[in-house]
């Protein structure tokens, strides 16, 4: 493959666009310039660090190291999901719930891809397992954080409607069914958008990358289709797991609505 190698100068020219955003912020008094510059710097440092880390992990080529990297990535995704809602679960329940959803979705979908479609030799080849987990975790993060945020928000907003039903003897699950549906639905929206827009409104990143790197478009498309299916499965699994576990944590053996378990 005839990859075009980027020089530091190429990147510096592109970086001027970030400076443009910062100037815009100062000119329009958006008060965002510090955040724009900070986020830009952070992005560069994070990516360069990850690049070196991956180079090292690829060279080491050890299953334990591959698994460790995927676990660290999952933990960060779980932390982000748990941090998103305005009012969070007290204690470590938010983190536990998020981590469970993230791990189930990632293990099932990445495991499926590694054992059926991609089948690298050996299965733990970090060159396949880590990027795959990274893409899947992106969708998992989106689906999981939307689901948890919507669910906890609805629980608070609909409190009087839910408790009015409980007070008349409606079971907890029946009274909260619309809330559960809404949360899972919101979790699935990003992947539905992504799939319906794919190729028409956006060229997905992986496919674009492969084409720029010199891959045949049809081969790149096949790869992208596989990924989309994985992401769809991962989104569904995350949303369902997180919504289910959060619903349980919001109630108890007497089918009460336990908003006191939120901060």
């Amino acid at each position, binding site marked *: 493959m005839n990859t075009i190698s980027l020089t530091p100068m190429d990147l510096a020219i592109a970086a001027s666009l970030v400076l443009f955003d910062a100037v815009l912020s100062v000119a329009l008094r958006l008060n965002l310039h510090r955040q724009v510059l900070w986020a830009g710097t952070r992005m560069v440092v994070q990516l360069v660090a990850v690049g070196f880390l991956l180079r090292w992990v690829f060279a080491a080529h050890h299953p334990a190291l591959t698994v460790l990297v995927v676990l660290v990535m999952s933990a960060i995704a779980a932390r982000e999901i748990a941090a998103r809602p305005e009012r969070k679960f007290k204690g470590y329940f938010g983190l536990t719930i998020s981590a469970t959803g993230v791990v189930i979705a990632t293990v099932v979908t990445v495991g499926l891809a590694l054992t059926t479609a991609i089948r690298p030799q050996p299965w733990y080849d970090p060159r396949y397992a880590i990027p795959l987990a990274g893409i899947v975790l992106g969708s998992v993060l989106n689906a999981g954080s939307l689901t948890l945020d919507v669910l906890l928000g609805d629980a608070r907003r*609909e*409190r*009087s*409607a*839910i*408790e*009015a*039903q*409980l*007070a*008349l*003897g*409606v*079971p*907890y699950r029946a*009274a909260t069914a*619309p809330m559960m549906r809404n949360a899972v639905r919101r979790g699935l929206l990003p992947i539905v958008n992504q799939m319906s827009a794919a190729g028409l409104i956006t060229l997905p990143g992986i496919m674009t990358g492969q084409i720029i790197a010199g891959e045949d478009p049809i081969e790149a498309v096949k790869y992208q289709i596989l990924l989309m299916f994985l992401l769809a499965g991962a989104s569904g699994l995350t949303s369902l797991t997180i919504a289910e576990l959060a619903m349980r944590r919001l109630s*108890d053996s*007497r*089918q*009460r*609505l*336990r908003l006191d378990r939120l901060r």
Partner: protein
Amino acid sequence: MRLVVTDLQSALAGPFNLELEAGRCAAISGASGSGKSLFLRMVADLDSHGGEVRLDGVAARTLPAPDWRRRVPYVAAESGWWRDTAIDHFAAADREAARALAARLGVGSAQVDGPAAQMSTGERQRLALVRAFVLNSPVLLLDEPTGPLDPEATTAVEAYLRERMAGGTAVLIVTHDPRQALRLGADHYRMADRHLTRMDPAAVLEAAP
């Protein structure tokens, strides 16, 4: 005794003790925030609590929570709505009874079939009461049931409650109006600092302007 409350308490209120015979009413008054709603919510098992509530000798915890709440339904001061139209909030089997009761309390069929969000505060309150009334439960827990109602609607609600009491229903009511307690022939309790004390009838009469 129809309803027996023994040492009902949480970190926020109590312990509460109260006994109510079938066909009787207990009226609780007291300042806002004194724990009246917390008390009713614990009786309905909507808040976690220590102590015990028995209905006709059967302890709440021995029944599945929804079964208990169907027998001891609670109507909050602020009503909640979860469907588009008011009538959709009733099970199909209860709709005929609900329409009849709503009409009796002065809510017309236009409101009953209309969007729940467009009802006035008083209409919402009366239909929230009807939701509990159609369950024909042995106990009713009512948190300021006539708070937003005009005198005419209040009279209609009280007449209905007296009918239910004659049929054996025990009514636990939070009210700011001592005269309402007298009209319902209620035992009067006063909630202060999250504790409940029984008042003697003479003091209640004196308190009524």
